[in-house]
């Protein structure tokens, strides 16, 4: 029986190797297959003919070949490893790494989302002669090999909501969170709570979650990974990958494929190589803290040594995180830092942290992410300007503190007192004087009762609802900037002509006077971002900053340099993000604009850094922070993880700003998709959209590609996003300025200077 099992084990190993090195011709694999075939032949002809020694010999051969093949792994092979059904999954880890666990929030199919697994797990350890139980909350994607209902680890929005819920539970109970990233990417359904918006919410909460978080990355695909991956320490398994997009997706984008076509395997291989997705690449770039070595060709459920290693690593890392902020650590901190062997288990560190330690922990996490991806952008600012900017920043911070905190607080308190007193006085006066006035009115003739006659014209003006004869109630059609398209002498048809029977529009009217809005149905034709810069944000009067930050090609992605140069030349911008200070109806504000014409408004390291600096500037100056998204296609895939890391980075910046009491407003225009919406844009409490814009997590093409479901043509329209609760209002383009001003006055936190 044992023999049969060993043969079966060898057969599994062989198929595994053949699957991993799909369509690669290698002598070792051929040799293994031949040897195994020979043995099976003998085994079949003489039942029980296989000797124990022979099995041992072939076992050794397998070990040797696996070690040898391990050195030849390409990035795409690693992708195949993590996707293989024999790869370890979260259930295996729960069984083998933790001493006990209880799955909570669902079991198997009876689950809000079976692809997200939550468990309360325990480490039981003997330290000295005491047995210690340490609780953790385990959150991670379960691929559930062979279980179709798990959806291959693609988490639906409600799965991420469940994860968030239990993160909060862990926070309440003050136990560490261990997250395990085993996902090829999130599932792109837009139903409430929304794929992008839920990931954004998770990131926002994780940015300030007051418990230690340790993440283990095995398969990390973009947004799905980030939803639980923002951690104090990130461990990566050596045969895993962490990437902005699957190599197939990147290849499809590179080749410009339409739906239905498949990219060639060579192109996919190349993209996998260029995206720098392996553990070493991520360690080198600083996006993971440590790489945990796996057995040759990747960990499988029977590698018990690996599970022991993982257990040690998890305990040590959690100890490290805790010890880095604990006030009482003494010698143990040093021991934790230096321990490399199994004695991590013997160091006991209480994982519950005090309130002040938790503050330090959150601050440390935020700083850690702030410092990332420095190498992935160009900063053309000179040393002098940088020094000046730093000094200025300090001065603003000090000024804000003096003016709004030290003096402002007293003034506000005084004002509040006066306000209350005034209200009291008003009421008293009213009570006392009203009877007097009534008596006077009664006595004196000709006072009251008779109202002055209102003229017909005034009456008409007051009672009329709208002015239909003046067209679309346009008031003032003189825009500070009109689109150059308005010079064309031609007409254009509204896309809603079938349903709304809009008459054709003369282009100079449409783009000149109507600001690109169909006067018949209100459809908004796409408008250049300069229109908003000039007509809404008074760009000519404003002060741009960090203009020297420039996008680059950090991964040396093929042909990307020329593409970037072309974009820079065509748009005159250095990155897709413009940040400036302006004043909207006398209210000073910091604005960040993502411009669609620059590489689709995609976000990379330079854009992220500019965005973060803008948020910091707004914090220092106590100004509202407005993100105008002219359009964004997501994270720039050619920058790889350098791009994807901007999701947590910017979200942390936004969180810090909002926590500091600012007002963060997001305005979407044209098309906004993917990463940015699923992080720093989607987490805003005030999100608005210009009419006729599209908002979503994945575009219709990607949805049908990944899920096989085709979505209705209007699936991502702003009105649908509004009805799903993803945005909080839809604005007419001509009223953006007015609405922005209104929002500035009525929304936002406590620390705005004009409040």
């Amino acid at each position, binding site marked *: 029986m044992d023999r049969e099992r060993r043969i079966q084990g060898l057969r599994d190993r062989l198929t595994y190797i053949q699957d991993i090195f799909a369509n690669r011709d290698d002598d070792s694999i051929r040799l293994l297959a031949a040897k195994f075939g020979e043995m099976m032949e003998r085994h079949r002809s003489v039942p029980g003919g296989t000797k124990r020694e022979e099995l041992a010999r072939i076992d050794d051969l397998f070990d040797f070949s696996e070690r040898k093949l391990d050195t030849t792994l390409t990035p795409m092979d690693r992708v195949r490893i993590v996707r293989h059904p024999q790869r370890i999954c979260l259930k295996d880890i729960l069984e083998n790494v933790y001493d006990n666990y209880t799955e909570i929030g669902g079991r198997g199919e009876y689950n809000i989302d079976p692809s997200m697994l939550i468990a309360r797990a325990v480490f039981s350890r003997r330290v000295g002669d005491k047995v210690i139980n340490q609780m953790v909350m385990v959150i991670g994607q379960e691929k559930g090999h062979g279980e179709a209902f798990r959806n291959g680890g693609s988490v639906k929005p409600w799965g991420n909501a469940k994860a968030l819920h239990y993160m909060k539970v862990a926070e309440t109970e003050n136990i560490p969170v261990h997250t395990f990233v085993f996902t090829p990417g999130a599932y792109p359904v837009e139903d409430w709570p929304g794929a992008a918006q839920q990931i954004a919410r998770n990131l926002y909460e994780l940015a300030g979650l007051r418990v230690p978080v340790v993440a283990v990355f095995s398969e990390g695909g973009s947004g799905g990974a980030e939803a639980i991956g923002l951690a104090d320490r990130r461990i990566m398994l050596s045969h895993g990958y962490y990437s902005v997009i699957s190599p197939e997706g990147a290849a499809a984008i590179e080749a410009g494929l339409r739906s239905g076509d498949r990219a060639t395997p060579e192109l996919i291989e190349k993209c996998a190589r260029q995206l720098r997705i392996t553990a070493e690449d991520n360690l080198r770039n600083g996006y993971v803290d440590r790489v945990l070595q796996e057995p040759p060709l990747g960990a499988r459920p029977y590698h018990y040594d690996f599970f022991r290693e993982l257990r040690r690593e998890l305990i040590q890392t959690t100890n490290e995180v805790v010890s880095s902020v604990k006030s009482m650590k003494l010698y143990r901190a040093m021991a934790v830092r230096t321990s490399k062997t199994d004695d991590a288990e013997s160091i006991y560190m209480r994982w519950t942290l005090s309130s002040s330690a938790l503050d330090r922990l959150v601050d440390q996490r935020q700083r850690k992410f702030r410092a990332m991806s420095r190498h992935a952008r160009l900063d053309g600012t000179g040393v002098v300007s940088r020094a000046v900017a730093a000094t200025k920043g300090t001065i603003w911070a000090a000024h804000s503190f003096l003016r709004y905190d030290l003096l402002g607080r007293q003034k506000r308190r005084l004002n509040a007192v006066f306000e209350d007193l005034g209200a009291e006085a008003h009421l008293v006066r009213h009570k006392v004087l009203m009877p007097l006035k009534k008596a006077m009115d009664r006595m004196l003739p000709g006072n009251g009762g008779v109202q002055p006659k209102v003229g017909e014209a005034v009456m008409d003006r007051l009672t009329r609802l709208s002015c239909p004869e003046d067209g679309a109630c346009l008031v003032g059609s003189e825009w500070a900037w009109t689109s150059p398209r308005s010079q064309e002498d031609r007409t254009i048809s509204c896309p809603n002509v079938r349903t709304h029977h809009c008459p054709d529009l003369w282009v100079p009217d449409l783009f000149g006077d109507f600001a690109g809005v169909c006067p018949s149905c209100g459809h908004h034709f796409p408008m250049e971002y300069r229109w908003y810069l000039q007509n809404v944000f008074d760009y000519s009067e404003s002060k741009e900053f960090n203009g020297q930050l420039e996008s680059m090609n950090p991964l040396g992605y093929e042909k990307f340099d020329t593409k970037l140069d072309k974009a820079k030349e065509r748009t005159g911008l250095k990155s897709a993000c413009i940040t400036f200070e302006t004043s909207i109806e006398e209210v000073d504000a910091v604005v960040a604009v993502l411009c669609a014409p620059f590489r689709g408004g995609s976000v990379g390291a330079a854009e992220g850094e500019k965005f973060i600096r803008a948020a910091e500037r707004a914090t220092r100056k106590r100004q509202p922070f407005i993100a105008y998204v002219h359009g964004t296609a997501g994270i720039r895939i050619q920058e790889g993880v350098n791009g994807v890391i901007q999701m947590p980075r910017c979200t942390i910046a936004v969180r810090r700003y909002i926590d500091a009491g600012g007002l963060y407003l997001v305005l979407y225009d044209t098309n906004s998709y993917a990463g940015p919406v699923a992080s720093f844009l989607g987490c805003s409490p005030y999100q608005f959209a210009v009419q006729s814009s599209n908002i979503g997590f994945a575009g219709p093409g990607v949805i049908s590609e990944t899920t096989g479901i085709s979505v209705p*043509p209007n699936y991502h329209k702003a009105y649908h996003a509004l009805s799903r609760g993803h945005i909080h209002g839809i604005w007419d383009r001509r009223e953006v300025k007015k609405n922005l001003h209104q929002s500035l006055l009525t929304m936002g936190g406590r620390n705005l200077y004009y409040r």
Partner: protein
Amino acid sequence: MLNIKELLDKVKASPYREIVVRAPHTGVVAFAAVKPGEKVHGPRGEFLEKPGTLLAHLTREKNEKSIPAPEKGVIEVVHTQHEGRFVEAGEPLLTIKHYLTRKEVIELILQEALYLFRAPERAKYYFVPEVDQKLKVSGKRSVKVQDGMEFLIVSRMKRETPLVYSGPEGIIYSVYFGRGDNVDEGEPLIGVCPEDQLTVIQDVVARIQSEWEEEA
């Protein structure tokens, strides 16, 4: 009484509908490469989001608009004399011969053979509980309606009023509205078939189902 056989013969004699594609507005016509005898298709995709075969372009004020085929069929005539010329709205540009599908034929015959009871106003319609239950338990064609019978409830603005049937006595053959749908004024609600014609109609439908080749 309706002569269904005659009707069917008439449909069989010319089993297609001619669709004349006209210029929707004035403009200069440029035909796409379509020739008589060529097959064209109508809008496709799950949501009919992909337009039909391109037939021609119409340009007015430098605004070029495409004219796609409205339905599946074969091109019969292309009025090529208009190529590159200015036409007025309503000018016939092409003719498409659309072969009737099975469903369309059945619908055509039913519309002729059945008495259609139409919605008197835009509202939601429900059957009265007795009728509803009978329909659910014994299926359609189990309910007989006669003049003056209260059989529907008109539900509008939270106001529910009974609706009285008026028309020839017969059996409910088809129901054209769904539960909770808003039905426009004048749209058919039910099709009523006189009892003696039921077998004839069922026979015809069965025959069309089996014989008609053009499926969709």
